[in-house]
């Protein structure tokens, strides 16, 4: 892949534009989806951390899925949840150590960040570049701080 | 004796023939299913006891043979004395000493035990002269009734295993397939698929493993052809399977036997062990590098497991539910490996075809339907039993020439063929040739060989109701059209038989039937409505009588009939005790009275009355 998703909590103002963007991008039938990104209190003054899926190399969510609904998309580098296969057992929600597999009650389904299929809306709308979808030459995928 | 090479088989055959020539007389006691039920085992024991006591010169107990089904079940228990061909019928234990004294020690015939031809009222000595037999053509059932079931020497004496030897030593697998293809053999289980083509397709699938399975589930009510073959001539089935395995490249085979045939399991198992002992099964058969093993897999009482994909799941230890066969089981069958599944009778035909050649077989029967077919002829015919005729023989010949016509001379009404998948054909269709194709056009099918003859006392609505009820019970329940559709069709026939139906219900049944046929997953559902549709087609008036007139012309449907005692009643009191609800009262020599309110129409009084004083209307 040619891009990586970079998160810089140092630059995050907690404006929550990413949350809005994510929610609207994932609307279904004109009902907003649950956000997959959460700017949360970093524990220090003026410190916010946009928490979102780390697209782990050894994902606990993939291991926890007994029907193989979670798979790595090699083009985007994201671990994607196939809604047609998902059986709603909540194993991934319980297993993810970062809480990034979440239950969207309004749509009655489990959701996680899929990097919007290769053009993450949150990075697009982030005013401070705390979130960036950066092209890289090296074939390595990592979330940098 | 363990056969290391084909020549040893020939030598053994010659030795057995020489040994058998020394036997002056043979007693063959039929131990087919019908005769066994009638006490054949006791007759055998009595023969053994008496023969041991009597010590007749030139005759040993070895010449007494338990055989498989001789065919004329109506006349059993049967005893045949060879080489004369003397045919004793309805033999009882107390007749044994007489038979030994008169026909074995001496050369006399016991007239009272002979078959009496009802048309000429003459006794017939030899079974070959009896109409029931003379109109048959015994090929696949040839050994039945002539050999001891699990005696391999008897089997070899009748040219057994020569076909296998020929195939293994002088034919290639492809040539075996070509021979079977040229013979025109079609699956005898009912579908009639060309056997050679099936084997060829399976062989061409690239796989490390191929399987051969014999379908011995025979679930059709009234059918016992496969049973007779498995019990009475098990080696023919084994030989057929082994030849198939050689042709297809299989090393492992299974015989799936329905749970209700324990004797077939015993005899097949015995035959397998004996074949192993003699180098005719297992590793390096007849000293060649071809190895094949056969295991018996038992059913558990499910008709649906006769369906090929359900059968394979059952063999694999899973629930016997069929699957869609868009990917056929010759390509992906047992354990997803290419599998040849054939019926018992199909396999039993194979050694004969290899031995006598494809052209010989092709000449029998009709152009697209070569060979013969075994039938279990049952119902209201005089001569019920197991028969075999050339394909193309008409229904009329089977029912009248072989079957001897309807019992008590009553009028013929219909003949049901093909079990729950088949249909009923009326008198106007009696001249149809029996084969895979002709009956289908008329709305029935030949099926696996069950043939049930009906007279005017059979209600066709009741017949449809019976078969639908059977299928509702046996449906696996996986798909909606069969599970719910047949259930509702059955409920509708119940309605008709109770006089509660309307004319619109008839059309409803026809439409639902069509949907069940196109929507069902497997053959059980797809052919389930056939008995109903064929009876509606040919006996629509009878349905209308039930619907419009609330009347059952045949006098069967309980809700629509009444039992009455007529003037013919002599007051003999024979019917009073059998009545389960004590509905009949009356003193001796006085005309009895039947209380309609208590009558359940069970028919017990009708069966018992010797004066025809019970009227069913």
């Amino acid at each position, binding site marked *: 892949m040619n891009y990586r998703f970079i998160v810089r*909590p140092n630059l995050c103002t907690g404006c929550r534009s990413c949350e809005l963007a994510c929610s609207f991008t994932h609307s279904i039938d004109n009902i907003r989806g649950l956000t997959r990104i959460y700017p*949360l209190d*970093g524990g220090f003054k003026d410190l916010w951390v946009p928490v979102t899926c780390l697209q782990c190399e050894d994902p606990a969510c993939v291991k*926890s899925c007994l029907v193989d609904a979670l798979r790595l998309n090699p083009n985007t580098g994201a671990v994607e949840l196939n809604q047609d296969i998902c*059986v709603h057992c909540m194993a991934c*929600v*319980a297993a993810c150590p970062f*809480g990034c597999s979440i*239950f969207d009650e309004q749509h009655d389904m489990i959701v996680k960040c899929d990097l919007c299929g290769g053009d993450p809306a949150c990075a697009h709308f982030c005013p401070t570049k705390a979130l960036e979808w950066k092209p890289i030459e090296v074939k390595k995928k990592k979330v940098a701080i | 004796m363990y056969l290391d090479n084909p020549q040893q088989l020939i030598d053994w055959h010659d030795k057995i023939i020489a040994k058998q020539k020394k036997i002056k007389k043979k007693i063959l006691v039929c131990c087919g299913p019908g005769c066994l039920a009638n006490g054949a085992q006791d007759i055998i024991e009595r023969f053994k006891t008496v023969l041991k006591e009597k010590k007749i010169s030139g005759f040993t107990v070895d010449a007494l043979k338990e055989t498989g089904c001789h065919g004329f079940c109506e006349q059993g228990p049967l005893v045949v004395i060879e080489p004369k061909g003397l045919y004793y019928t309805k033999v009882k234990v107390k007749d044994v000493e007489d038979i030994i004294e008169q026909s074995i020690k001496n050369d006399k015939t016991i007239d009272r035990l002979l078959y009496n031809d009802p048309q000429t009222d003459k006794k017939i000595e030899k079974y070959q002269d009896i109409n029931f037999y003379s109109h048959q053509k015994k090929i696949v059932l040839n050994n039945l009734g002539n050999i001891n079931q699990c005696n391999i020497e008897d089997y070899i004496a009748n040219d057994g295993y020569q076909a296998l030897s020929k195939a293994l030593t002088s034919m290639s697998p492809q040539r075996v397939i070509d021979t079977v293809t040229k013979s025109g053999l079609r699956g005898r289980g009912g579908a009639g698929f060309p056997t050679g083509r099936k084997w060829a397709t399976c062989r061409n699938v690239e796989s490390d493993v191929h399987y051969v399975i014999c379908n011995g589930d025979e679930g059709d009510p009234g059918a016992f052809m496969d049973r007779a073959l498995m019990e009475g001539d098990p080696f023919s089935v084994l030989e057929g399977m082994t030849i198939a395995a050689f042709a297809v490249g299989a090393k492992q085979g299974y015989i799936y036997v329905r749970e209700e045939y324990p004797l077939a399991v015993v005899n097949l198992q015995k035959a397998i062990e004996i074949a192993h002992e003699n180098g005719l099964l297992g590793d390096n058969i007849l000293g060649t590098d071809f190895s094949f093993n056969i295991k018996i897999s038992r059913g558990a009482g499910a008709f649906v497991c006769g369906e090929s994909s359900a059968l394979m799941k059952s063999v694999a230890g899973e629930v016997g539910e069929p699957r869609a066969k868009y990917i056929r089981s010759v390509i992906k069958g047992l354990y997803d490996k290419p599998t040849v599944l054939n019926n018992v009778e199909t396999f039993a035909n194979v050694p004969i075809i290899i031995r006598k050649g494809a052209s010989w077989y092709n000449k029998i029967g009709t152009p697209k339907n070569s060979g013969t077919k075994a039938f279990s002829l049952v119902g209201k015919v005089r001569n019920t039993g197991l028969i075999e005729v050339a394909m193309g023989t008409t229904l009329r010949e089977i029912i009248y020439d072989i079957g001897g016509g309807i019992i008590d001379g009553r009028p013929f009404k219909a003949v049901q063929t093909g079990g729950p998948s088949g249909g009923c054909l009326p008198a106007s269709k009696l001249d149809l040739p029996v084969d895979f194709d002709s009956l289908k056009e008329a709305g029935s099918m030949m099926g696996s060989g069950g043939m049930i003859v009906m007279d005017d006392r059979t209600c066709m609505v009741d017949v449809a109701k019976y078969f639908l009820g059977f299928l509702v019970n046996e449906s696996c329940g996986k798909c909606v059209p069969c599970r719910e559709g047949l259930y509702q069709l059955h409920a509708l026939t119940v309605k008709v038989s109770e006089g509660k139906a309307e004319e619109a219900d008839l059309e409803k049944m026809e439409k639902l039937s069509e949907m069940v046929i196109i929507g069902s997953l497997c053959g059980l559902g797809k052919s389930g409505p056939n008995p109903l549709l064929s009876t509606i087609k040919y006996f629509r008036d009878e349905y209308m009588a039930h619907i419009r007139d609330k009347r059952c012309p045949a006098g069967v449907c309980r809700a629509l009939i009444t039992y009455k005692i007529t003037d013919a009643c002599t007051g003999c009191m024979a019917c009073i005790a059998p009545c389960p609800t004590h509905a009949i009262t009356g003193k001796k020599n006085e005309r009895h009275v039947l209380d309609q309110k208590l009558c359940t129409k069970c028919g017990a009084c009708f069966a018992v009355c010797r004066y025809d004083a019970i009227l069913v209307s």
Partner: protein
Amino acid sequence: MVNLTINGRIVQAKEGEMLLTVLRREKIDVPALCHHDAVEPFGACRLCTVEITKEDWNGHSNYVTSCLYPVEEGLIVSTHSPKVNELRKTILDLFLARHPNSPEVRQLAADYGVLKTSYETVVDGNNCILCGICTRICDAMGFHAISTVGRGHGKEVAPPLHQVPPDCVGCLACAKNCPTHYIEYIFDNNYLTIWDKKFELMTCSRCGKKTITKEFAEYLSKNRDIPISYFEICDECHRKELAATMGQITSWEREA
């Protein structure tokens, strides 16, 4: 790639793909009640039946369930032909006779114009349509806790011997995927009850929120190589924890 015609339109598909997959991709709506992508197609409801023919079939048609039929070159498919529509109506009609109280069945039947059953209502009809989704998913997940039991009209979904299923871990996949919501389960304080089996729920050690059952968590931990500690904290608290951790690291960066 193969070319086939669906409702008069030429469509391309991968060889060996199931027809239903292609239909769905082409946004052609064909009901398929017993279908679930987590498990192999089953062919039980027959609602996805379509009419197929080929040019060299001389006008002869076949009716196959699209969920199980692999596409072929030159296949001509009709998804809503008169006979197919009639079949679907008949199946839904039969469903209504057996499951008159199921809102899902009534709705689907109404969509196809069947408002009332034309058959005898089955007396003991419950809402289980015997689609087999629950049992197949349970098998796919590796638990094999329930299965279809019995044959024909008396078939039902049940645990072994109709007793409390020893292999059930309370994952609720069966109940959540049942098309008619027939399988019942009860959440009650710390416990979940399903198939008459009572399960204790994992409780978040931070906030007390209940997540999955202890048995399910232990199964996943043991068999899928996931530390059991992961299951002791809920997703919300996990996110807060991640924020705190990253926040701490960032604060060091700021100091530096």
